[in-house]
């Protein structure tokens, strides 16, 4: 504080004052983030170098041994793989569906616009406990979904939805789609308001089909929003806990469990190993950050 700042000749006193005022505006929000997110995360970093159960923790020998331990942890590898399966299937599927729905809703001739929008968005207002319960009941062996499929003659005997790896993952992805497609749709719908209609009309006059006009004219203009939703959804999926915990309970045989769910198990169900849990959380953080960087590199060219 006491050290005098080196003189910066090019900045006028007025500019300097403006800049300081600017920092003052940032202060409350930044302090809260630094205090309540970054500071605990630093403590978690220290914790990730410690081993021991319960409160009997000591620094590991070598320090990074929790991280090397991850490489031998079959459950960790399985949950990491599961999480990536969700990421690769669910995020693109959801974003494409949201994009299509938003485009349909953006049609000026569409009737009952707000009814459609409301109906499709509402699921994202439903809390975890509620929706997990409803889904579990619907996908039970003698639940509604099986009743309906059998009624339609599509299957002969009930499908054991949550009891098989493939179908359990499918139900989980379906749940995610149900809850979050409408949410992303709203973002696209908003972005579409900024798309210049005349560019689409021009493309159509040049003979492009609606689908082509959408793909070549509309979508590029939505790029910043697609990038934003992609980063947010990637982040959400890599930290996915709710669905794995409450909907499939990780089963069968951990094949639908996510990393965050495993993190919770290591911390609270098993004999608690917080050093190791912190190492797992850092792996999540690093993967999310790496993917965000990649997405930004691919997507954004501003600045």
């Amino acid at each position: 504080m006491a050290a005098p700042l080196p003189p910066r000749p090019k900045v006028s006193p007025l500019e300097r004052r403006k800049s300081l005022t600017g920092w003052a505006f940032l202060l409350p929000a930044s302090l809260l983030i630094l205090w309540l997110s970054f500071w605990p995360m630093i403590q978690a970093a220290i914790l990730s170098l410690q081993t021991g159960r319960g409160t009997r923790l000591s620094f590991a020998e070598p320090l990074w041994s929790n991280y090397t331990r991850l490489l031998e942890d079959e459950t960790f590898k399985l949950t990491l793989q599961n999480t990536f399966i969700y990421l690769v299937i669910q995020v693109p599927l959801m974003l494409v569906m949201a994009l299509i729905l938003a485009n349909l809703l953006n049609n000026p001739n569409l009737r009952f616009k707000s009814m459609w929008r409301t109906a499709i968005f509402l699921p994202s207002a439903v809390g975890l406990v509620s929706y997990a319960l409803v889904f579990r009941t619907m996908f039970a062996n003698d639940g509604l979904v099986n009743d309906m499929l059998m009624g339609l003659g599509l299957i002969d005997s009930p499908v054991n939805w949550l009891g098989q790896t493939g179908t359990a993952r499918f139900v989980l992805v379906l749940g995610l789609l149900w809850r979050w497609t409408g949410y992303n749709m709203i973002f696209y719908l908003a972005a579409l308001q900024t798309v210049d209609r005349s560019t689409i009309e021009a493309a159509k006059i040049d003979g492009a089909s609606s689908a082509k006009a959408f793909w070549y004219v509309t979508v590029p203009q939505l790029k910043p929003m697609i990038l934003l939703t992609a980063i947010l959804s990637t982040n959400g999926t890599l930290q996915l806990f709710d669905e794995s915990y409450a909907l499939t309970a990780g089963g069968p045989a951990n094949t639908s469990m996510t990393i965050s769910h495993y993190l919770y198990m290591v911390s609270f169900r098993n004999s608690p190993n917080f050093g190791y849990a912190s190492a797992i959380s850092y792996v999540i953080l690093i993967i999310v950050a790496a993917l965000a960087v990649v997405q930004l590199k691919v997507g954004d060219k501003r600045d």
Partner: protein
Amino acid sequence: MQSVAGYVFLTLAAVASVFPLYFMVVSATNSSNEVLASKLLPGTHLLENFRTLVGAQPLGVALWYSALIAVGTTILALAVTSVAGYGFEVFHTKAKDRFMGFLLLGIMIPFAATMIPLFRMFGDLGLVNSWIAVVLPAISTPFLVMLFRQASRSFPHEIIEAARIDGLKELQIFLRIYVPTMRPTFAAAAVITFMAAWNNFLWPKVILVNNDVQTLPMLLTNIQAGYVTDYGMLMLAVLIASLPAMLVFLALQKSFAQGITGAIK
């Protein structure tokens, strides 16, 4: 041709979206064993479920604290993050850009990792079991700061300059000129924050150690904790817990869409 396909797709999506909600509503009127048997028609047990629920659980307390926490979080979050978003854009410098990028890393921090240190911090502050401890970590999210920052991009800088010449202080400019024009962005941020705060699940369960302060998601897990679960009553509680977030969206949905639009112009 295409519009028919469009309507079909929309209808499918809408039905798939609303059906589980319909099931939830119907189940609230059925008995426990009827819910388990997936009965799809409305029943006659609504009143009975309500009486059991009120008799067994502190519904009023949970509603009050859920509302207090969600409204408190929303108001404070809007206040703090809008100021910051404005600051980032209006007083834009390279250093602030870099700092913003750094803060954005905060989105990626898994909550389960910070829970134990956070708990210790709130313990030191004497805030365990206080609704404030639920509100505080949810106030300042990098995402909202970014939303306001992006929205501020469309805000004409000339107006600010004019106001400065008129002798208005920076905070006055923010309050009198920026806030009124950015109402849709505030609505969008409000919907996002309210929904997240209303449905917050893990942290309240940990930090609220005394049942004098409870939230609705906590109450829902209470109902399922015993050896015998009354599913009809549970579904009614589920319905009651879901309604407010839906209503907030319905009330603000027009501005919500506009606000997000503002943020990406």
